[in-house]
């Protein structure tokens, strides 16, 4: 009798705990829904062609975010070019040339440590090296290089995994036919690993375009600057604009709506990028 009631209690407790664990998990979902709802309610009415194509303005109803959009796109170009060339190069070296050397272990540890450095520290590095020492100022190049260093560990690790997943027998077949190491890498291993590498690169880019802190530290002005035409121009970017409008919403209420509208645009870009990565990954998984 005592055991039976005890057992019911224990089972009830189990059910109770299950409910608690489930609600903890759903907490994240609820927060995400609230966040999305708030941003949509605040911002969706402000999005129209005029908002997307106009210059920034102090008058909320005239403000547009073409400048920040262009700035973010230019940053993405720099980040893609730099991280793909250096990141994939590093991954090839670590995976295919120096697999078990001591240097390899050192570099790997180093990459893991870099991944844990706060983004604002990268901002300070960019400010000191790119903006001041190399005298790039607050241009697209300075911002792009800074963000590239920030996401480089992501690209290297993802590319390494992609290279590792290439089956050994096809590269051995290539060697067997007399191909050199580089020929095998260039014609066999890289094309096979490409989807995995691209997925990593897209995720890195989507991480980098949401970054705000390093750009703020670089001293990107909140001023109304002309549209950037090239990589040596001053720029502003979508997350920066969200930051400035959020801060200034104390002064002008409508700036909060502008920030929300900009968040919708930024999140749309991010979700598109992530969906692309997922599609590439799924297609790739089916083929192998």
């Amino acid at each position: 009798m005592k055991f039976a009631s005890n057992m019911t209690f224990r089972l009830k407790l189990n059910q109770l705990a299950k409910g608690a664990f489930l609600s903890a998990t759903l907490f994240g979902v609820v927060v995400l829904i609230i966040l999305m709802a708030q941003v949509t309610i605040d911002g969706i009415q402000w999005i129209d062609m005029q908002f997307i194509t106009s210059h920034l303005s102090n008058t909320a109803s005239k403000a547009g975010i073409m400048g920040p959009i262009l700035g973010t796109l230019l940053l993405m170009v720099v980040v893609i070019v730099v991280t793909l060339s250096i990141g994939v190069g590093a991954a090839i070296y670590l995976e295919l040339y120096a697999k078990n050397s001591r240097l390899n272990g050192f570099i790997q540890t180093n990459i893991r440590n870099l991944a844990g450095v706060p983004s604002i520290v990268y901002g300070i590095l960019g400010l000191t090296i790119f903006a001041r020492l190399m005298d790039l100022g607050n241009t697209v190049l300075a911002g792009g290089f800074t963000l590239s260093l920030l996401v480089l560990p992501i690209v290297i690790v993802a590319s390494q995994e992609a290279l590792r997943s290439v089956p050994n027998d096809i590269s051995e077949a290539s060697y067997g036919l007399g191909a050199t190491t580089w020929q095998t890498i260039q014609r066999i291993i890289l094309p096979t690993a490409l989807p995995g590498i691209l997925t990593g690169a897209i995720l890195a880019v989507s991480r980098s375009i949401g970054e705000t802190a390093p750009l703020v530290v670089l001293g990107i002005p909140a001023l109304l600057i002309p549209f950037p035409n090239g990589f040596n121009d001053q720029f502003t970017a979508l997350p920066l604009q969200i930051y400035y409008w959020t801060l200034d919403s104390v002064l002008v209420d409508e700036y909060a709506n502008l920030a929300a509208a900009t968040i919708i645009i930024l999140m749309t870009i991010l979700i598109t990028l992530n969906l692309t990565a997922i599609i590439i990954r799924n297609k790739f998984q089916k083929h192998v």
Partner: protein
Amino acid sequence: MNSMTKESLNIQQRIRQQSKSKQRQQRMNRTIPKLLLGCALISVLTTIGIIYTLLAETISFFNIVSFKEFFTSTELNPLSQNPDFGLLPLLNGTLISTAIAMAVAAPIGLMSAIYLSEYASTRVRNVLKPVLEVLAGVPTVVYGFFAFTLVTPVLRSIWPSIEATNILSPGIVMGIMIIPMVASLSEDAISSVPQSMREGAMALGSTKLETTIKVVIPGALSGIVASFVLAVSRAIGETMIVTVASGSSKNFTFDITESMQTMTAYIVEVTSGDAAAGTPIYYSIYAVAMTLFIMTFAMNLLARYISKRFREAY
């Protein structure tokens, strides 16, 4: 005869050509690894660059401001006539916001991990995990907007004495931001506990909850603790949420309803103010950044040490 020479000439030419292309290939095989090594060394250069810039300017800072003042003074007035450069207000802001964030993220993250790995069906998990991934991918400035324009007003309607900028709201939102990280790292640790141990506990009559608490969690403890330490490191380095929602008060206080500045927010404030190079305030951001770098680095090493040293071997 004539045709013979022609043919042999042709062959000679082809041999020469082939050896040329072989030479080129050999050259490629020699130079390309060096180029690739150069790429790999960029990451080492980045580390050296970070440490060098931080160290050099931090030393300049300590030539102006004493070590003792920086680490023991509770006064921080970088812009006054007689500036004070005490780190403690910033350190205090950072630690308090991190503590609030962990109070949110540790229990909720761990409970989510337990649910996802022990209780959820595959179908439920396939829905919930992507949601957590989206939550992890939201830019921090968006969380800052969320803290400033929604969470703070809600908190103020419940608790009217809270200031418009306060440390509580960004702390909570920072916790929400870190939940996916704790959940996913802890889940990895929990699901690596062998199934046979769960089955053993259940065969002895344990309920699922008892199995989880008495067998699974202890088995995964090192990984769970490591995930908490990494989350702390992440919270210490988080910038935008606190910059947007916690204001820039440099008071040394423990009142979470007040505005406090974190180390990261201080760096943002000074750099947006365009401090002239060579002034003490300019050097101070490097000293603060150095402290930040050492703290997060130590946390990351600690996390790795814990998960290695205390891992239960199965």
